[in-house]
């Protein structure tokens, strides 16, 4: 329970046996009374066993589906087990569970709440094509969603029942589909989206590749995904 709502924390994990126990432990410590579902996306290491030992429920996919595939499974679980709120958290520990009540609070007036970097809290800087991609994505998606969105690729989100229901039936498994395309889809259907500034953990800062070629490819793919999302129904 968070603020009187039945809450499920969904953690998609691929070969995260090193960090998953800490993440699950921290979530359970900070948020007593919430259920934690680790979706093991076809890991080849002991991710599932470690997560069970840490006290999480585990849904283990037989093979890798990508973040989007793991997330739809998580939302189906949330729908089937009648949760009011589903919250997505990354398995690498970059998201601080202490922000969860804040996200849940905002669900009173919104359908999907995103924990966003670059929104005032924490320090997280990117440069070059990666930066341009983020600027492009946030400019376009802010217009589509009619609300200010600065961190469209954030994997820290809270969804209410209506959005859980939608994501359980439709959630793209493609590259960037789990973030960019779902935002377009959700906004188009009239759901209210809102972002909350959150600080990401230091250990994650600087992970984005510094190779300019990679960054350019990322920009190209982001542009393609966005264009496709906008022309799709």
């Amino acid at each position, binding site marked *: 329970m968070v603020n009187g709502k039945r809450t499920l924390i969904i953690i998609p994990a691929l070969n995260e046996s090193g960090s998953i126990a800490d993440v699950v432990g921290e979530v359970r410590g900070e948020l007593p009374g919430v259920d934690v579902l680790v979706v093991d996306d076809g890991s080849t290491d002991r991710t599932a066993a470690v997560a069970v030992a840490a006290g999480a429920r585990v849904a283990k996919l037989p093979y890798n589906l990508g973040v989007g595939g793991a997330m739809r499974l998580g939302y*189906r679980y949330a729908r089937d087990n009648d949760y009011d709120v589903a919250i997505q958290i990354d398995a690498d520990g970059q998201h601080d569970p202490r922000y969860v009540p804040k996200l849940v609070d905002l669900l009173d007036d919104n359908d999907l709440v995103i924990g966003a970097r670059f929104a005032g809290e924490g320090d997280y800087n990117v440069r070059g094509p990666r930066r341009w991609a983020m600027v492009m994505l946030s400019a376009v998606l802010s217009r589509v969603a009619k609300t200010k969105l600065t961190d469209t690729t954030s994997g820290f989100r809270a969804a209410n029942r209506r959005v859980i229901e939608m994501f359980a039936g439709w959630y793209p498994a493609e590259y960037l589909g789990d973030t960019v395309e779902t935002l377009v889809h959700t906004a188009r259907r009239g759901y209210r989206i809102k972002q909350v500034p959150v600080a990401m953990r230091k250990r994650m800062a600087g992970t984005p590749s510094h190779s300019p070629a990679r960054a350019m490819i990322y920009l190209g793919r982001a542009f393609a995904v966005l264009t496709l999302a906008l022309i799709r129904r």
Partner: protein
Amino acid sequence: MKLTLVTGLTGLLLLGTIVELLRRRQLREKYGMLWLAVLVVVIPLSLFPRLLDNVAGLLGVASGVSLVLFLGIIFLLLVCVHLSWEVSALEEETRTLAEDFALLRAQIDADRAARDELVSHDG
């Protein structure tokens, strides 16, 4: 004459392959029928390559063989697109199955854990 022999034999060989695959149930009927229909068109053409020269002339194509080549490429392209479409649909189906499977396994694990707890309380 030699050329006709080569193309004709190739056409018949392809026909034999498709029929054999269908006979062994290695090919779904819908695909088998498609390729048989193609061969029904291709085999007469392989025996009489000049058959389409008149049609080609009407379309402004210099020779019937060029026309066949052009149509062949378009057809193969469409087949490739169709197969990509089929694979996408299949991936969506297997994805759903994988999710169902994971949900069921999670449910079984939960049931087993609940039962073990009951047993340990009884004992």
